[in-house]
């Protein structure tokens, strides 16, 4: 099974979200059944990273 990459809220793309449970050689149908999309909602109620302030 492929290692899952945890999507962060900044850099998710749909391509990254597509995962495979495994690869089953010539049994492509099984590989297809095992293909899924992994989606990680935000862990907190973030606002757009766009408000002012130049640092600490």
């Amino acid at each position: 099974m492929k290692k899952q990459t945890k999507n962060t809220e900044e850099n998710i793309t749909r391509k990254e979200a597509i995962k495979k449970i495994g690869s089953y050689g010539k049994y492509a149908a099984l590989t297809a059944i095992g293909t899924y999309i992994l989606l990680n909602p935000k862990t907190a109620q973030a606002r757009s990273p766009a408000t002012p302030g130049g640092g600490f």
Partner: protein
Amino acid sequence: MSRLVVKKIEDKEIVWFKNSNLYLVLEQITADILLKIDKKNSLEEIETWAFKKIAAPKNILHKFIEDVFLLYTTNNTLKRDVQNNSEAYKVPTKHYSVKYYSIHNCVFKIQFETEFHLLKIHPTFAHLEIKKTPNYNFKYTVFNNKNSIVFFKDDIFIGKWNKNEAHVFEGKLSMQILIDIYKKPETNWMGVFHASAISNGKESMLFLGDSGNGKSTSLALLNANGFDCIADDFVPIDNNQNIYTYPAAISIKKKSVRTLLPFYPELENSAEYHFKKLNKTVRYLPLKNINYDVKLKCKALIFIKYNPKIELEINSISKIEAFQQLIPDSWISPLEKNVTIFLKWFLDLPCYQLTYSNNTKMIATVSKIFNDEL
């Protein structure tokens, strides 16, 4: 006790993992296997069942089901992020600035230890500022601790974030204001969406999309054309599926100021804030005629995309495509009850992709959607 919530989406299934708060979109048969695992069926039982459904040799199928077991275990053992509250904090007594805001009949006293903290919060609430008063309902304090931002409400620790997570701190403070003005705990909110919400007075619509696609500008334009602004950037929906007003000002990027000036002459002289890191400049436009009593149902989700080559195109999009765009950009309450409500809410909503460069046509299209004329 089940650790999954499963809901059909088109020809696939959404599976939500309670322990990790992850959403998977899977083929139906794989979701069925996950459910059987969750119901403590043995590997042998599942193999016997699957052998009748899937045309593959037993040894290959065995490997597949083992892999689904691993998927189940992996997603159930991932830990959710938990805020560490073990440190003792010394809440400062000196502040760079203390501001008072009146929001929905509540007075907030917010103490900012540094200018940085002030600039993170104040510009979006500046239009709600009032004079100093001893009669406030809530006291928030924001300060630095070992290079982190710490947020207290009265004497209660709410959270701490490192400087890269300043937008999460802003979100948490915005959430606390939401909880306090509507007197609804976090558990009563279904989600907060990174969107703009407009209304025709009866229903609301959410505009979603990556930054730079005109969510805020469209909201301001629609507001100037007779629609009400409900919220920008932070759209709260409770677990009765009602959209609530949120009074933070709309952030208007420099490139949109010229488009909006005919409607909002006050933008000409409003303060400008420059973000070095993001290389952009914004001004803040307060929502007009804020009405905290309206609680509106959502008519549709509109994923908007600005494209200078296209005047206007509107298409229904698949639920799966919409789900993929919605989830990573949203805070969905991680409580099972609320996840069930959220999934039902989302699956019943029409979803559109709106690509545009012509604002007049965009406004006409939004009217059509509200009037069921599309």
